[in-house]
């Protein structure tokens, strides 16, 4: 069944966990372009997708977070935008069963928009359009615009997606910090602004990813629910990373993340996954918790 139909039917879905964290354990070095792996080692992406599929994810993401030409240009790879995005979709499709939905990840363009930055909105739109066309061409089931901090950029991305592929569902999530005045992105977007602003331009699913950890995400989800009836996607980090004996460690265990699943569903979340630091073990634990909560 298609994504929106399943949500309509009241299913609570499970999304996958971190990509970067998995790539690093797979050998990605500091300073390497993560999307170069799509060309050089697609089998690693299939391995990761398979692990998440086996863990029980209903939605598995492509390794295309930085796959827009504006972002790839930082590594002189913008000419290979189409190949890079297509290879990522293929790698996931080869690895997961027909019931798993493939989500095309689209991260920020990495530049600040005018007038406070130097990026021209038309260039940003063209950049998203090129990446999204490649993802849609390769037949993703859904586009996921994520880790957004500037509502204007997120809105450009959503509009672009709807323009080039009106029938492909669009998920759009933003990243919030906790401040003494509530949750805001670094660009000053509140949860209410995000919920309303993303819905206004046609997002089918809204929510939040990355951030400070699972407990905050329950509050962010509840705030989203006050301002929108759209399905909510929530993908927290496994907390903020710490260094232990020279190694990077994310503090939240699979059990800890899973222990918040009931509260998330209570808050109105429809798709639950993970972001940085979450692993297939985290997703397996979330899967069990979702199954337990809805049964």
């Amino acid at each position, binding site marked *: 069944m298609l994504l929106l139909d399943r949500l309509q039917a009241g299913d609570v879905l499970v999304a996958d966990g971190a990509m*970067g*964290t998995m790539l*690093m354990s797979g050998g*990605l*070095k*500091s*300073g*390497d372009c993560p999307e170069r792996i799509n060309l050089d080692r697609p089998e690693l992406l299939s391995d990761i997708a398979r692990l998440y599929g086996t863990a029980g994810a209903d939605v598995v993401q492509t390794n295309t977070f930085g796959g827009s030409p504006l972002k790839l240009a*930082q590594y002189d790879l913008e000419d290979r935008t189409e190949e890079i995005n297509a290879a990522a979709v293929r790698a996931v499709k080869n690895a997961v069963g027909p019931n798993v939905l493939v989500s095309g990840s689209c991260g920020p363009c*990495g530049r*600040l928009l005018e*007038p*406070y*930055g130097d990026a021209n909105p038309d260039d940003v739109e063209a950049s998203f359009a090129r990446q999204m066309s490649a993802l849609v061409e390769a037949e993703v089931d859904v586009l996921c615009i994520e880790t957004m901090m*500037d509502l204007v950029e997120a809105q450009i991305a959503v509009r672009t997606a709807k323009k080039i592929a009106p029938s492909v569902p669009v998920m759009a999530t933003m990243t919030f910090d906790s*401040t*003494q*005045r509530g949750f*805001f*992105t*670094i*660009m*000053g977007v509140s949860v209410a602004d995000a919920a309303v602003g993303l819905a206004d331009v046609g997002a089918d699913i809204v929510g939040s990813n990355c951030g400070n950890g699972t407990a905050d995400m329950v509050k962010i989800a509840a705030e989203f629910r006050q301002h929108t009836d759209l399905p909510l996607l929530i993908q927290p980090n496994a907390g*903020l*990373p*710490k*260094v232990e004996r*020279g190694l*990077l460690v994310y503090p939240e265990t699979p059990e800890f993340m899973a222990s918040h699943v009931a509260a998330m569903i209570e808050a109105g979340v429809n798709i639950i996954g993970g972001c*940085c630091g979450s692993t297939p073990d985290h997703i397996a634990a979330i899967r069990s918790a979702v199954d337990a909560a809805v049964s």
Partner: protein
Amino acid sequence: MSIVQQLIEKLQKGDAKSVAELTRQAIDQNMGPKKILDDGLLAGMAVVGEKFKKHEIFLPHVLLAARAMYAGLDLLKPLLAKDGIPVIGKVVLGTVQGDLHDIGKNLVGIMLKGAGYEVIDLGKDVPPERFLDAAQESGATIVGMSALLTTTMPVMKQVIDLAKERDMFGTLKFLVGGAPLSVDYAREIGADAYCFDGVNAVECVKSFTVER
């Protein structure tokens, strides 16, 4: 309203054109570059920093205010140099090798310049030796390093280890910042301080420059 008060107000609004105009007027009235800088531009940036710290305003606001500050500062710089007014301190700043994220680092640079420091901004993807070479060449005593990626955080330690090798560790203070960082991480790698935002970075730099 006095000229400095107008400067403070226009700067906060990010009105670069008016800030340049008012700065020129103040210079013409023989106000003295140091006074225009301290009581006008830096006072305005201090208000911006304070509001940013309280999350009353956010990054876009700060960037626009900074652009307005630079519009005035560019006019004052030659005059300050001519008067032989020394800078209160120099800071070498950069995003570490392998990391191309510079929004946070730029914000720290803005806040430091807004507090009157000279900033030697090395940009992004900066190799370890560049940080130390730049400090040596400029005579800066403080090195600020930024990283957004968990994969590039370890480069900060390489810089500090290299400073130890080169016998520069004792004479330099190392500040680190970036989304995935923490006080614990700063301590672990031997940095002198973890700065959680641009305003806090200024506070850290102040505490180290006063010490000397």
